[in-house]
């Protein structure tokens, strides 16, 4: 486990301050086919390597973050506030 996470609001904090929600995925449209929803709810890639995950800074600022890390080497590549991440995702999709 990556043991130090640099929260964009609080700075460097130990992993014990966070709760991990799992892989970041985009929510399908409400009318998306059953198979799409099924994959969204139940199926995970679980890669051995780089992955983006939702982390909640429960004992700190209580913000949801997107942590990109390597599940094998524990290296952390970046931490973003989830709201900012979502906004950039929406902006990218619109362009």
């Amino acid at each position, binding site marked *: 486990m990556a043991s130090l996470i640099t929260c964009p609001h*609080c*700075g*460097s904090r130990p992993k014990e*301050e966070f709760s991990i929600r799992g892989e970041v995925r985009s929510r399908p449209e409400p009318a998306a086919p059953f198979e799409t929803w099924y994959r969204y709810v139940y199926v995970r890639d679980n890669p051995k390597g780089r992955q983006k995950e939702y982390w909640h800074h429960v*004992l*700190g600022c*209580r913000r949801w973050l997107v942590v990109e890390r390597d599940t094998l080497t524990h290296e952390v590549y970046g931490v973003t506030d989830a709201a900012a991440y979502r906004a950039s995702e929406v902006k990218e999709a619109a362009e």
Partner: protein
Amino acid sequence: MNGPFTHRHPLDGAISANPGRSENHVTVLPEPMVLSVAALPGEEQAVAATLGGVSATALKAVGPGEWLVVLEKADLSLQRDIAERAGALALVTDQSSGRAVLRLQGPKARAILAKIVPLDLHPEAFAIGQSGNTLFAHVSANVGRIGEDEFEIVLMRSFALFAFQELMEMGLEFRLTAGFAT
């Protein structure tokens, strides 16, 4: 059972009546004022500007757009001022009866606190006026530096006894004493 509400501090009974005082000491505030200020979405900067009248050590950072205003005693005019200036842009709630405030001071304050919180307490990383929510032993607390050798710890009332006992145990080797502020 009916009766008038009587204020009871969560550490009543946990501190001896004649505690004595070594150079490392925990001062427990008997009736602090704790206000929570949470900005509405998009109003974070505007709310921060209205809190300019609060001293740097009394204004605690909680998260983006969220603060605690912590004072030794109730200050109704400041409370009214904050409610008037920030009221339309933020949720301002009085948390005084739900929180406990401890002040740890002395030459070994940093060494004692370093055993309990994961923060980097070096003055360059954590200067006077800086604060944040963090892990305190096993519970959540807001920890701020209010002096060179003085820290203020703001906890949920129900965590107060546990946190206090933990703090006193970590301070044993430095003869840490505790008492209510008088």
